């Protein structure tokens, strides 16, 4: 019995995987992302292999040219550029993934409850969602990033942590980023809740929470995964913009965005410093976009069939 269940549930998964593999650009992008993630995680090892210290300031070797010890040279404080880029990658990838997932969880919960409840509550929630979508995101994020969290009465131990800028940016992005998933989930919930299998669950005495999370939510996995993957790139861009403006990740903690903050002033002496972090952001964002595109094709075969029909 369990064997049958396994084949039944595995078959669509395998088909999805096979369709994804056909999307060569998406597969290549997934490999690039995996490589970047592994390199970022190995930052301490690479630091040890090179025999350098990521925070080791050496004012006698500022803007050093590439050497075997510093493969990409040194920055304005004589620190190793390669190792700083890898540690920055840890931060940027972490923020991109956690903030996107947090936003997706919030959006899914809001969309499910709103769509399932319907009526006036749904109308109200959707008005609020429209309102949040109508906000000028970047100026608002700048205000949010500039507020003094101490005035909100959060605990001092949290505020004195050196990673506070990290949590703050994840919270800020999640706060404005939930709308896409919420609308998507709400629209699908509205149609799913009238289907026979939901009525059957209802007739068997399942409660609202059980119906929402056990019966409706699993059917929404594909669109949520696609929307989430496609928004990781945007979140990484947003983090890099805020950090570039000096409002995101605070130095000495490096992120790809804040590594570019000073790069503009030193562009004449060290153009490389302005190039590498941006290139890494670019590669990561475009890779997430391609993977999202490939997932969309793989999870929604009808779109793919329509494409095939267009060719003739």
């Amino acid at each position, binding site marked *: 019995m369990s064997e049958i269940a396994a084949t039944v549930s595995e078959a669509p998964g395998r088909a999805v995987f096979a369709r994804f593999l056909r999307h060569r650009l998406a597969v290549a992008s997934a490999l690039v992302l995996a490589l970047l993630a592994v390199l970022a995680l190995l930052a301490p090892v690479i630091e040890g292999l090179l025999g350098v210290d990521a925070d080791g300031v050496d004012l006698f070797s500022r803007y050093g040219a590439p050497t075997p010890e510093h493969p990409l040279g040194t920055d304005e404080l004589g620190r190793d550029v390669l190792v700083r880029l890898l540690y920055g990658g840890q931060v940027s990838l972490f923020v991109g993934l956690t903030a996107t997932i947090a936003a997706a969880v919030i959006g899914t919960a809001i969309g499910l409850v709103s769509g399932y409840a319907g009526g006036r509550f749904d109308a109200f929630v959707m008005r609020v969602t429209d309102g949040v979508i109508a906000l*000028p*995101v970047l100026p608002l994020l700048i205000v*949010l990033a*500039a507020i003094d969290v101490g005035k*909100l009465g959060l605990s001092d131990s949290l505020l004195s942590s050196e990673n506070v800028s990290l949590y703050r940016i994840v919270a800020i992005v999640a706060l404005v980023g939930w709308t896409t998933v919420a609308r998507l989930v709400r629209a699908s919930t509205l149609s799913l809740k009238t289907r026979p299998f939901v009525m059957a669950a209802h007739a068997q005495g399942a409660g609202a929470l059980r119906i929402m999370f056990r019966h409706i939510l699993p059917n929404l996995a594909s669109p949520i995964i696609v929307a989430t993957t496609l928004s990781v790139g945007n979140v990484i861009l947003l983090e890099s913009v805020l950090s570039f403006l000096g409002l995101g990740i605070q130095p000495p903690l490096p992120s790809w965005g804040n590594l570019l903050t000073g790069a*503009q002033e030193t562009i004449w002496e060290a153009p490389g410093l302005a190039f590498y972090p941006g290139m890494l952001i670019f590669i990561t964002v475009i890779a997430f976009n391609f993977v999202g595109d490939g997932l969309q094709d793989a999870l929604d075969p009808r779109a793919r069939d329509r494409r095939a029909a*267009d060719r003739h």
Partner: protein
Amino acid sequence: MSVFLIRRAFHSLIVLLVMSAVIYGLIGLMPGDPVDLMISADPDVTAADAARLRAIYGLDQPLWSRYLHWLSAAVTGDFGYSRLYAQPVWQAILPALSNTLILLISSLLLALIIALPAGVFAATRPYSVTDYGINLTAFAGISMPPFWLGILLILVFSVMLGWLPAGGTPQSAGASGLWEHIQYLILPIAALTIAGVGGHTRYMRASMIETLRQDYIRTARAKGLSESRVVLGHALRNAMIPVVTVIALDLGVLFSGALITETVFAYPGMGKLIFDAIMGNDYNLALVGLMMATALTLTGNLLADVAYAALDPRISYESLDA
């Protein structure tokens, strides 16, 4: 139609009012107040002086009462004084606003001039090499960090080639001719244009592909019309409907792009003004600047709804309201 417009405009005003309260509250949560700045500028200010100054400026009042005070002045057109520019807020904003409008309008037009033909061209030969090329370029455009694009343009055209200034304004460099003015605009406009082209191209392409699949297009082809008449005469107008809507909806995104571009190129527009005002604790200026950015976004949403119903006779304003 007019009932719909009035109701929508009324909704937008309510959102604007709510936002003014939210933004006012958030600004109240920013570190430091004007008196703190005075104290740091002048060490002779005593604690008693500071308390008296706070009472004079009303800073000892609770946030909500300060907000109501600001609001009652604002509805009479008095938005206060900008400390950063030592001018009434309006006088600080107007030149920045005209600078930003030059930037926004020219880059939006340029982006559309490039994106719409590219999107149509790609859509008429789907999954060809040309289509893949256009699609890849568009993907690269939307994946490019906008501030890095600005830095790269400076790197190539100012540092390496030395053709164009790296930022600022002709006033700051003491130049005056028309060419000098244009020189300072080229890189910011280019950066904002490149940032926008990719998205518009993808929308245009997707919408055109969808339209070319419709039955009436097959009919037009069956009548023996040339392919260019079919695409430009029959499909384009319908394919433009969602694209126009998206352009209007994206006004807020465009403004965010302007903020980044202006900051990178030290271009004195609204985006840089808002950024400097927030960083410099210039509450009055930041508040009005943010409200104008919100108003711009809301106007875009309103325009999108109007355009949607105006361009597509199948959609009535009544159905949009429901």
